[in-house]
């Protein structure tokens, strides 16, 4: 059978220029994660204006590099990696002071041991409003904060978090454990101060 000498011509009724294809796939796979990027950016930068700029820059970089992204893989993790690099390179120095916290020296505070008689179901948590929780997250050391946000705010797996943060899975586990305990301690202290629970602050 003779082969056609020239490539098939697309039907004239549905011309699809490459730029529209790129745009369509970017909209379907990347722009749908705008809310995720914004929430993570907000927790990293600590303010809405810098979060806006960081997300905008992330989307621009992602669109320029879109040909390098293997379609149908993990766009969310890919975008968050770009966002994190942009944050480290351009925003961290500006918006947050470099941290001098020795993460290993932070002792976990066993909240459950404190509340197991008075409130073993953790009902006091329900009285704490969204803003207070976010404020407490913002007080965590950066390495804890970004791990906790990717896990608890965005529901990413340990493997995905390890990939985005470029650390071993064991590091993700230990940071997440201590971040959650530290946050729990802060929320508990707040609940005691507000009189939601009797307890004894740390």
């Amino acid at each position, binding site marked *: 059978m003779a082969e056609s000498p020239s490539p098939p011509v697309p039907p004239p009724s549905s011309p699809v220029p490459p730029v529209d294809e790129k745009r369509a796939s970017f909209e379907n796979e990347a722009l749908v994660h705008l809310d995720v990027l914004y929430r993570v950016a907000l927790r990293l930068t600590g303010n809405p204006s810098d979060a*806006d700029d960081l997300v905008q820059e992330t989307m621009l970089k992602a669109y320029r590099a879109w040909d390098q992204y293997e379609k149908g893989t993990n766009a969310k993790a890919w975008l968050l990696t770009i966002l994190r690099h942009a944050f480290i390179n351009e925003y961290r120095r500006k918006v947050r002071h470099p941290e001098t916290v020795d993460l290993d020296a932070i002792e976990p505070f066993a909240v459950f041991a404190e509340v197991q008689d008075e409130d073993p179901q*953790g009902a006091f*948590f329900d009285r704490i409003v969204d803003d207070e929780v976010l404020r407490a997250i913002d007080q965590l050391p950066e390495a804890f904060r970004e791990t906790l946000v990717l896990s608890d705010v965005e529901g990413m797996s340990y493997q995905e978090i390890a990939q985005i943060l470029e650390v071993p899975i064991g590091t993700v586990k230990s940071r997440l454990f201590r971040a959650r305990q530290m946050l729990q301690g802060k929320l508990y202290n707040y609940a005691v101060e507000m009189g939601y629970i009797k307890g004894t602050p740390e």
Partner: protein
Amino acid sequence: MNCRECVEHLYEFLDRELTPEVEREIREHLEECPPCGEQFDFEELYLKFLRARCRTQGAPAELKRRVLRELFGE
């Protein structure tokens, strides 16, 4: 599995990050050990609370428009 080992895997268990074998060992321990069971229940409620409190916020509409404008000139 003893209590200490069980609690060490606390969050991995709640995050469904363990192998089926370790997960089964923990379930067995929790059935036999009410104090560990209570602690796991408490931590599970805490994680649910965190998720419920933190996932509500989305990107502002103006940011969406700004990104579209920048990318596609709209």
